[in-house]
């Protein structure tokens, strides 16, 4: 039933996030003709989808939603006055934290999958094709990088009290990541650039090819592995802090 509690606490955020993502993806597909006709240079449909969904607008929304899903936890419960009840249940704090993390990570993965389900499905309605395999590759990038973004917000929620400070700290943390990735010493390791990775920038053939057939570049498995490990580390750190904290 702990899963039930975590679901009940987060399902509205998840549902609103899913609706917002679906709406944005739907709008991108529906407006493709108008946007592409006003583009400075001819733009393939795949490139348009990448620019609007995976590189910019929808991706920015996804990053914000991953942060929102990471917020909450026992510090938030303390502010709401329910931490006493939760902590009086015969459940270890480790379990409380890990179940919440697992629920959130599952929701982030589900959100990451939504564009892959919707865009290939809607594209034929506007006379275009977007490969499901390609969309799933991007979903994998979103899911793994989204895990890290979620874990960052999750960690700050375990460290910082208040409704807004964990969100602000997460955004600041991401901006710092972005700034660090621009440093010459770090630039030589593209795997360390979270934003390039989540955009699928390494899959650069997409830019030059009008069709999708050459989109077979390997996924950045090393970077994804590193991000997944860092995310697990952040969740572990959040657990350790929560276990020793006074409520």
């Amino acid at each position, binding site marked *: *039933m702990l899963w*039930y509690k975590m679901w*009940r606490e987060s399902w509205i955020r998840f549902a609103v996030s899913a609706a917002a993502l679906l709406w944005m993806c739907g709008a991108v597909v529906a407006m493709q003709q108008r946007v592409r006709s006003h583009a400075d240079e001819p733009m393939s449909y795949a490139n348009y989808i990448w620019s609007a969904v995976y590189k910019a607008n929808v991706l920015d929304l996804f990053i914000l939603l991953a942060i929102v899903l990471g917020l909450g936890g026992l510090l938030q419960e303390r502010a*709401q*006055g329910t931490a*006493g*009840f939760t902590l*009086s249940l*015969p459940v270890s704090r480790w379990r409380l934290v890990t179940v919440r993390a697992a629920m959130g990570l599952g929701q982030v993965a589900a959100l990451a999958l939504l564009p892959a389900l919707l865009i290939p499905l809607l594209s034929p309605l506007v006379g275009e094709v977007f490969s499901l395999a390609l969309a799933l590759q991007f979903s994998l990038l979103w899911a793994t990088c989204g895990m890290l973004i979620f874990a960052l917000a999750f960690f700050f929620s375990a460290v910082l009290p208040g409704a807004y400070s964990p969100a602000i700290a997460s955004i600041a943390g991401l901006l710092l990541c972005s700034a660090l990735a621009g440093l010459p010493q770090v630039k030589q390791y593209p795997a360390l650039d979270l934003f390039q990775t989540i955009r699928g920038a390494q899959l650069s053939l997409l830019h030059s090819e009008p069709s999708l057939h050459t989109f077979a570049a390997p996924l950045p498995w090393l970077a994804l592995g590193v991000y997944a490990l860092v995310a697990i580390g952040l969740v572990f750190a959040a657990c350790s802090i929560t*276990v020793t904290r006074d409520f």
Partner: protein
Amino acid sequence: MTSKLIIETHGLTKQYDEFKAVLDLSLAVESKRITGFLGRNGAGKSTTIKMLLGMIRPTAGTARVLGYDITDPAQSLEIRRRIAYVGEDKGLYGYMTVGELIRFTRSFYRDWQPEIEERLLRQYQLPLGRKVKQISKGMRTKLALLLALARRPELIILDEPSEGLDPVSTDELLQILQDVCAAGTSIFFSSHQLSEVEQVADRVLVIDRGQLVMNTLLSELLNNYRRITVELAVQGPVPAFSLPGVERVLVTGRQVSLLASSNVDGIVNYAHSVNAAVQVAPVNLRDVFLDIVKEAS
């Protein structure tokens, strides 16, 4: 007859930087009794309770609840499995309905008693389909009690249970506590409402500034404690009243107010021997409590 100890603390201390919320607290709570844990706001009652429940880690000292060490995570889990807790703010999940919260809580306890749940639901007239955030504070207290009582815990710990309740609900709550204790459950409750402690408690523990300042059976307090007012005949040095049984001494001009826990006759005789007029009056919990905390101030 000696009762089994259900809560024991030795030198329990909680310090936040320079502030000592609980200081060297050693107390013992007997089973199958109602024990009132009295103190002013900020005296350290909630901190003590939260330490017993594993929500706060003690800075020093040891404590056992039902024989389990509160600082050991596995034993703390066993404590929470076997006791029930009703917090001061009755903070329950507002997004669940009453029925959902009952089902949720039930899933954590193998000893849940559906027949008690049914009986209390009827008795408290709780609206199963209504969201917890939509019910009154009195109803929330009843719901919290139902969640605590529906599994016959060995011990119920309540932190300021009557906080925010109207007099009728408070009276119902105290009746429930007495009924539950009569059925064999030990009750440890904190309060700063003297009248309600006096109404139901068997034993009274008073904490002030994090330290235990009184530990007595209520019946003993009411039967044995007396206020002795001594009016000295002449102005001059006040004789020392360092006699057995004298708990507190307050001197105002020629008047000496004594709180005696025993040896009342001996104290009266001593006062007569220094040519003083003496008045002896019974005391209640309020008198004793105010005496103690005023002295501490």
